[in-house]
């Protein structure tokens, strides 16, 4: 049995949706490769994603698997190769000009990297004022603007605001810079927030503050939030749903607690196993477990492996995995939990030794 990533219920809540989203980056051939077919980096292949009002969806997965590309496609910063993007059910394809500004007002992106996203020649005040103005949230008077600026800085815990407002990016620490970038996105007062590793440069205590803030915003402003992260524990705590990406494809999805506590896809299991855990040091060293299991290289995206893209590294690989791409199969432990893995196709008989450890219902 297969499931679609979008349960039929409560479609009114859907803010942003992608259907079979695909992005291939062409590769220029060098002189030595003049023969052969044209090649491309398969950065995103046939990805479905749904962002709902008042929900945080975490997107985790391997570095280079296409998470940022998904966010850039959703924010229309990058043109899709194929597939569809729908805002409130309507297919959108806008690039530049007024329609583009209207779209980005509703769909704001926070970038992975605060060092690149702020202009070094401008102050915090300039960045935030510009965002408030472009999106019509600067108010009517200078006093309105000042209030809005103070509120933005306060929201991201840069307090007291006057300590930060006239600083240049280079006068701020890495973490402080990222908070300015977040404040700038909030300046648009968006409906959907695409946050690409918004906290990876922040230390734990501030990270907690920002994540609590994101959760708060989703509740108070009913924001639909895509939260791209490498910190799976934070996905467990702050995201309602979690999606896992590997080599350009979604491999697992479901509510965050099920995905993190009961991972089904062998890649997700590897990911969860590899998370830092000081309590486990001695145990892991004794068994060599995490170290060995982490072996194997990420696949080439120019020439991705046929079938399931994880098959060359998978400890449970079966013949079919090398040939056919798995659809989304129901895992069965909680509603909506699925995995793109042949192990969960009930119709395939499995050898006992290739059987995945049972997933508890």
């Amino acid at each position, binding site marked *: 049995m297969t499931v679609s990533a979008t349960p039929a219920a409560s479609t009114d809540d859907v803010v942003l949706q992608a259907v079979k989203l695909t992005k291939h980056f062409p590769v220029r051939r060098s002189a030595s490769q003049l023969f052969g077919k044209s090649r491309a980096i398969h950065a995103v292949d046939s990805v479905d994603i749904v962002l709902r009002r008042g929900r945080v969806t975490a997107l985790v997965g391997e570095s280079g698997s296409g998470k940022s590309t998904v966010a850039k496609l959703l924010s229309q910063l990058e043109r899709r190769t194929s597939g569809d993007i729908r805002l409130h059910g309507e297919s959108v394809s806008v690039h530049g000009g007024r329609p583009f500004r209207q779209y980005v007002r509703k769909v704001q992106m926070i970038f992975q990297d605060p060092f690149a996203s702020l202009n070094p020649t401008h102050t915090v005040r300039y960045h935030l004022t510009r965002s408030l103005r472009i999106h019509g949230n600067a108010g009517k008077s200078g006093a309105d603007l000042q209030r809005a600026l103070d509120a933005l800085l306060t929201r991201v815990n840069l307090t007291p605001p006057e300590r930060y407002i006239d600083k240049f990016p280079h006068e701020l620490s890495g973490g402080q810079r990222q908070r300015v970038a977040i404040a700038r996105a909030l300046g648009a007062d968006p409906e959907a927030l695409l946050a690409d590793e918004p906290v990876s440069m922040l230390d734990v205590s501030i990270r907690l503050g920002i994540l609590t803030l994101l959760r708060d915003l989703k509740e108070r402003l009913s924001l639909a939030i895509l939260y791209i992260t490498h910190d799976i524990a934070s996905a467990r705590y702050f995201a309602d749903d979690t999606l896992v990406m590997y080599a350009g494809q979604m491999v697992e999805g479901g509510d965050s607690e099920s995905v993190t506590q009961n991972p089904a896809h062998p890649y997700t299991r590897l990911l969860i196993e*590899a998370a830092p855990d000081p309590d486990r040091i001695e145990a892991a060293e004794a068994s060599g477990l995490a170290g060995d299991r982490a072996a194997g*290289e990420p696949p080439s995206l120019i020439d991705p492996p046929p079938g399931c893209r994880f098959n060359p590294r998978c400890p449970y690989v079966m013949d079919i995995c090398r040939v056919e791409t798995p659809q989304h199969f129901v895992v069965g432990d909680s509603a909506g939990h699925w995995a793109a893995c042949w192990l969960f196709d009930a119709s395939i008989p499995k050898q006992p030794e290739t059987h995945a450890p049972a997933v508890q219902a």
Partner: protein
Amino acid sequence: MKQPVLEIKNLNVDYGLGDNAVHAVREVHLTLHKGEVLGLAGESGSGKSTLAYGLTRLLPPPGIVAGGQVLYHAPSGDVVDVLRLSDSELRAFRWSEVSIVFQGAMNSLNPVHKVSTQLMDVIKAHEPGLSRDARLARARELLKLVGISADRLDSYPHQLSGGMRQRVMIGMALALEPQVVIMDEPTTALDVVMQRQILRQLVDLRERLGFSVIFITHDLSLLVEFSDRIAIMYGGRIVEEAEAHEIYRNPLHPYSEGLLRSFPALRGPKREVKGIAGSPPDLRSMPSGCSFHPRCPRAFEPCPDVLPILGPPDGYTLDTRTVACHLHPATIAVGAKEPVG
């Protein structure tokens, strides 16, 4: 007997001059030993990057080293003060003796050159005698080391993901087989599988090549796993230093304890995660006494007035464990005594 590679003595770094100066690093004493991974943790703005740039003399203006020494023990046995090297000596020192992976380094790749060209240039600078083919092979090897498939050698930086660029920078830092590698948040953009793989490689390489690592990150759980010793910074000062597992099992400074408690747990039942109350201090108006006292749940009578000295608490010596906290008073201050040897 552990041999020191880098000895940082009473290092002070300011941004700006005179009354406007911000004291971002204060009276830091720290020793990195041969073959050791020294972790440096602390909240955003605590001065970790400033310390790293200060000791390699890579401070961006208006940063200046306001005092102190950084003694480098070369493999030849020579000891030099990095802060007194001439410009040409300094150029040789960087990269081949000490290499640094900057925070946000993924943006320091040159956008107009292929990854292969940039890696090969670094290798060429170090080993001019190598043939083009040998350099290409080495570049390929370095990419493999950091988990990037060889068919991406011809990629330009903008064609790589953030984590892939970060990995290229790590590969570059290792290309020259330096004595000391300083990594400032090197793996923030990596998934945990990759992160573990790269750090494991680094630890293996270190055992083979004998270099030392200063590993800066706010991810204390990662530090506990991968470093030998950990130093915790607060408001520009080191407030605790000990073996990694000791910091984890038995943090003495309430700030270290707070840092450890502020992680959400991936495993086990969900629990309420408490950060550290309040926010980091303003370097322009530091609290009196112990600068952590306004946020400290265990502050008592001397804390607002008296700056606690960093030194060994009861039962420890200068080179096993130090802490700057009135709860664990030290009798001798780090730096008060010349280290032996």
